[in-house]
């Protein structure tokens, strides 16, 4: 045992940390137990009432020929999506953020950071009452955001992809931003302080970004020219290419400080045929490879890490699976299946991590599902919500048709 371990043992056993219970300890516990039991009964009663009312409401709606969007609007939150009598079908309500279209968002336990276009803005929204607590203009039309609550940073990126126009000259497409890249792949990155929304730093990398995520003050980017990491130096943000080649997806394991990314293997038909993907796990600091999965028969993959559980979704062909549950240590595929929704995934599946659940969207259409990361059991679903979605425990938000929706977590989904 090392000196530190010995000192730790002595510190933990130090009698100065002993606490004596007050004289009313038992009475307080019993009182809290009674309050807890009352709350459980109230919640159960309320839940039963909601199910009954929803059932009656649905029946009336069907009989009178009204669509599912006809609901009463609250002052700042406009109900916009489906409600049915099924306890496993959740409701989404649109958050009123004023003029503009929501492009991306990221969530912490108390704040949602929302990137909007027309006008180009970054908003900080309270999760408690959905009020806008801060608003700042962004230099570009933002395509994605990632928040790092521990580092107090929110990252945004705007990306452009080069293509060749009819005259044979290259041109830039796929963007509504201010056009600082004529005919070249490029991603403009900004770091903002979560407290003030002031810009902490900016840089441009010469590559098109598919996906990005933040960890430990760094931004990891999956791009068409490799896996990049952006770190903040004294002189400002600095980008380093970690892996060469196309990387479509990246995800972080904040507990183990690891980064997972997918690298595509072309199919027998060449670059454009549907091949397979191999998931790699690397250490966020040393960048040493820790594990590599076997090839998964999907393309355009997305990775969700929830605790020790890893799920990979992607597009496939025929009857091959669209969703894979990987072992957290070896990255080998586990036999878990997403119960109750496999058939509805269509050509593919897109996954996002929640705090304690995995979010899965059908790749072919709208329809968002919340699943248990261990068992794959379907906990709750939102048939009319698109995503992307982000959640913390008890709170979930999704982007649908340019609006920010708050998802009600009334079924088994905990966020």
């Amino acid at each position, binding site marked *: 045992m*090392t000196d*530190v*371990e010995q*000192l*730790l*043992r*002595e*510190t*933990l*056993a*130090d009698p*100065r*940390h*002993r*606490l*004596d*219970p*007050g004289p009313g*300890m*038992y009475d*307080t*516990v*019993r009182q*809290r*137990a009674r*309050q*807890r*039991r009352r709350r459980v009964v109230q919640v159960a009663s309320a839940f039963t009432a909601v199910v009954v009312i929803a059932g009656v409401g649905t029946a009336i709606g069907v009989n009178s020929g009204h669509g599912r969007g006809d609901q009463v609007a609250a002052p700042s939150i406009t109900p916009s999506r489906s409600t049915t009598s099924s306890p496993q079908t959740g409701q989404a309500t649109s958050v009123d953020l004023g003029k503009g279209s929501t492009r991306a968002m990221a969530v*912490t*336990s*108390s704040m949602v950071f929302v990137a909007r276009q027309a006008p180009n803005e970054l908003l900080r929204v309270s999760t408690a009452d959905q009020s806008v607590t801060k608003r700042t203009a962004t230099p570009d039309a933002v395509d994605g955001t990632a928040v790092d*609550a*521990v580092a107090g940073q929110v990252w945004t990126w705007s990306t452009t992809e080069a293509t060749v126009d009819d005259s044979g000259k290259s041109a830039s497409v796929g963007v509504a931003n201010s056009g600082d890249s004529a005919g070249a792949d490029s991603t403009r990155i900004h770091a903002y302080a979560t407290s003030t929304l002031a810009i902490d730093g900016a840089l441009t990398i010469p590559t098109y970004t598919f996906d990005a995520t933040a960890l430990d003050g760094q931004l990891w980017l999956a791009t068409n020219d490799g896996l990049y990491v952006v770190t903040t130096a004294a002189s400002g943000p600095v980008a380093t290419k970690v892996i060469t080649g196309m990387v479509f997806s990246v995800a972080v394991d904040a*507990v*183990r*400080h690891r980064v997972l990314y997918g690298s595509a293997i072309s199919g027998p038909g060449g670059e454009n045929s549907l091949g397979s993907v191999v998931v790699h796990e690397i250490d966020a600091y040393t960048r040493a490879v820790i594990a590599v999965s076997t090839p998964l028969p999907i393309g355009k993959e997305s990775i969700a890490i929830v*605790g*020790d559980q890893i799920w990979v979704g992607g597009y496939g062909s025929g009857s091959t699976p669209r969703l894979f549950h990987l072992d*957290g*240590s070896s990255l080998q595929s586990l036999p878990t299946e997403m119960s109750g929704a496999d058939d509805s995934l269509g050509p593919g599946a897109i996954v996002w991590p929640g*705090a304690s659940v995995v979010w899965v969207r059908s790749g072919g259409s709208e329809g968002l599902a919340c699943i248990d990361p261990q068992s794959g059991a379907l906990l709750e679903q939102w048939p009319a919500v698109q995503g992307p979605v982000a959640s*913390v*425990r*008890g709170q979930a938000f999704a982007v649908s048709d340019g609006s920010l929706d708050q998802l009600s977590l009334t079924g088994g989904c905990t966020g």
Partner: protein
Amino acid sequence: MNRADEDDFRSFVAARSPSLLWFAHLLTGDRHAAEDIVQTALAKTAAGWSRVRRKENPEGYVRRAIVNTHLNAMRRRPWREQPREQIPEAVDSRRREHELDDRDAMWHALAGLPPRQRAVLVLRYYEDLSESDIADVLGCSRGTVKSQAAKGLLHLRRIVAKEDAST
């Protein structure tokens, strides 16, 4: 809860509260938070006490509830380093004072750990649980326990070394 269960639960709370509070204090580093999570964990346990009391180790069950209550609370409120309560004055002997300084430094260093890393170290070095038992309590893999323990110890080692260098 019937009368026998009620009496048994009352005895359990009376006998084990000091030990449970100590354990919670090590997890949270804060006296008030410790009291709160012990009361919450016991209130949760009360509902199923007739079942819990028949378990081989009811106290282990309550400790697990304490850890989970604490980690869930910290998940709802993201972790930040927080000021801790004052450490009592040291005693007179010079050697004893030095030992207490070391322990105080270690106690403050523990306050800088993320809740899950701290929980792993408390379960390992205070409760003497094995890696697989800790993994069971925290609902994670043995590998995660190992890496969390290693990271936590590394952090403590750095802080303690820094303290040594500055004195």
